[in-house]
């Protein structure tokens, strides 16, 4: 056993925990080595005197103080500004699905709101107007094309569409007047005469109606046209209506209606 090896065994030697073989080897080394023997004796005194020191008990406050310190440490850790940007964003995201939805929705509303606020106003308005124009054109197209159909039922539908176009639509107006004057079906002519109400403000309306009345073979349509003049308050039509009321070639019911119209317009 070398001196170095012996020194590592010192503490075990003093506490008497060495096994038999190592104690014998240690004793043999001490017997043959002066320095190690002197060292062991000197330090042995200190070891024994240390054992005489009273065991220090922790005070009752220590425990509480420890946890206070620990808590303060944790708090310090949490408020420490050392987290990455990603962690910060993630920490905003709630764990509850309901809250997740609420946050999503709030963001959506915010986005729409912001989008609406910053929309380019000057570009939007003509687009809407254009769209409205296109819808109006589409209705005009439907009305006009249906009014040219072979089937009277389809033409009747076309007249129905005429209610949906702008009252300033002259193309639809002339198609309606054409239907009143020329359509082979009395029912289509009748519906067209009714549809003319919406175009009452158009110029030349009174003249067109007055021209249409004598062309009619169906008294029912003639009466509808007279009613139209009354509804549109075309007072200027009174002399023509008076002449119609006096015309013996005209159906009695129509003459009666014309007389009524003259009174009504006065």
């Amino acid at each position, binding site marked *: 056993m070398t001196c170095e090896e012996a020194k590592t065994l010192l503490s075990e030697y003093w506490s008497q925990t060495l096994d038999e073989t190592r104690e014998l080897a240690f004793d043999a080394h001490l017997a043959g080595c002066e320095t190690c023997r002197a060292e062991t004796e000197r330090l042995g005194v200190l070891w024994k005197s240390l054992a005489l020191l009273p065991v220090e008990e922790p005070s009752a406050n220590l425990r509480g103080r420890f946890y206070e310190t620990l808590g303060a440490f944790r708090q310090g850790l949490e408020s420490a500004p050392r987290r990455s940007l990603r962690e910060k964003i993630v920490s905003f995201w709630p764990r509850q699905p309901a809250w997740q939805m609420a946050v999503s929705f709030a963001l959506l509303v915010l986005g729409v709101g912001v989008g609406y606020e910053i929309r380019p106003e000057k570009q939007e308005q003509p687009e809407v107007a254009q769209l409205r124009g296109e819808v109006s054109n589409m209705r005009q197209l439907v009305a006009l094309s249906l009014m040219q159909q072979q*089937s*009277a*039922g389809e033409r*009747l*539908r076309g007249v*129905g569409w005429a209610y949906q176009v702008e*009252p*300033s639509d002259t193309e639809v107006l002339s198609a309606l007047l054409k239907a009143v004057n020329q359509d082979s*079906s*009395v*029912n*289509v002519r*009748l*519906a067209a005469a009714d549809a003319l109400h919406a175009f*009452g*403000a158009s110029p030349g309306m009174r003249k067109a109606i007055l021209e249409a009345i004598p062309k009619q073979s*169906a*008294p*029912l349509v003639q*009466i*509808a046209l007279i*009613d139209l003049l009354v*509804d549109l*308050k075309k007072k200027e039509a009174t002399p023509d209506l008076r002449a119609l009321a006096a015309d013996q070639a005209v159906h009695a*019911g129509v003459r009666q209606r014309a007389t009524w119209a003259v009174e009504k317009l006065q």
Partner: protein
Amino acid sequence: MNRFSIVLGLASTLGTLLVGQDTPDRVTVPFRDAAKARTLVVVVVNGGMTIRGYDGKDAIIEANSRGGPSRGRLRLPSAPPGMHRIDNQNSGLDISEKDNVVTVNGGIMHSVDLLIQVPIQTSLKLKTLNGGHLTVENISGEIEAENTNGAVTITNVSGSVLANSMNGRVTVSLDRVTPDKSMSFSTMNGIIDVTLPADVKARLKMKTDNGEIYLDDGFDVKLDASSRAPVVSDRRSSGGRYRVRLDRTTYGDINGGGPEMQFTTYNGSILIHKK
């Protein structure tokens, strides 16, 4: 017996048309294409007509002349000395077929009653002026019927109907209606009596001056609150005028509303029955 002058209004390019002349007063005209939609057009100045759907492919036209010139005809000049007039019995009926459309034109001078049988699935365009009933039975298609001085009776049909009479009653009974088709029934001096299937969906537009409107209790009709109320139209913003008028028309939705169905009469009532 009458003789028929059958004028085939066909262009030579259309090829030959088979016209079977069964008996002098009965003519069979086939529709060229059985797969395509068929249309029958009939115009009669003097006389009535009955159109009936049957289980076949051809149009079968039968005519019953009332004999002699019609009452409306001008008095004939007396025969020149030494001569006598022979009765011209030509009914002047003109029948043609083109593109699956069979057209029957009644003569102007003679009064004739027609009975025409066509396949059930046929659309009709019918017009008669003087003295006669216009009757349609058992047809499925688009029916357009006008009668000036007589009644229009359309029963046991499906599809859509436009019916008009000037001085007669308009009676229509529909088993089924084509959805999205507008219809119209009108008469000056008669009653409009229309029977509709229970499930019909329509926007009713009813107008009568001197009559009443009757609706079947079984129908779910929602009348517009604005019906018979003043109609205000304000066009001042676009340079027009401000106007209030009293609309004589009553509007209502049947079974929730649908295509427009117009009823117009001046001196009659409107009756709408449920089938």
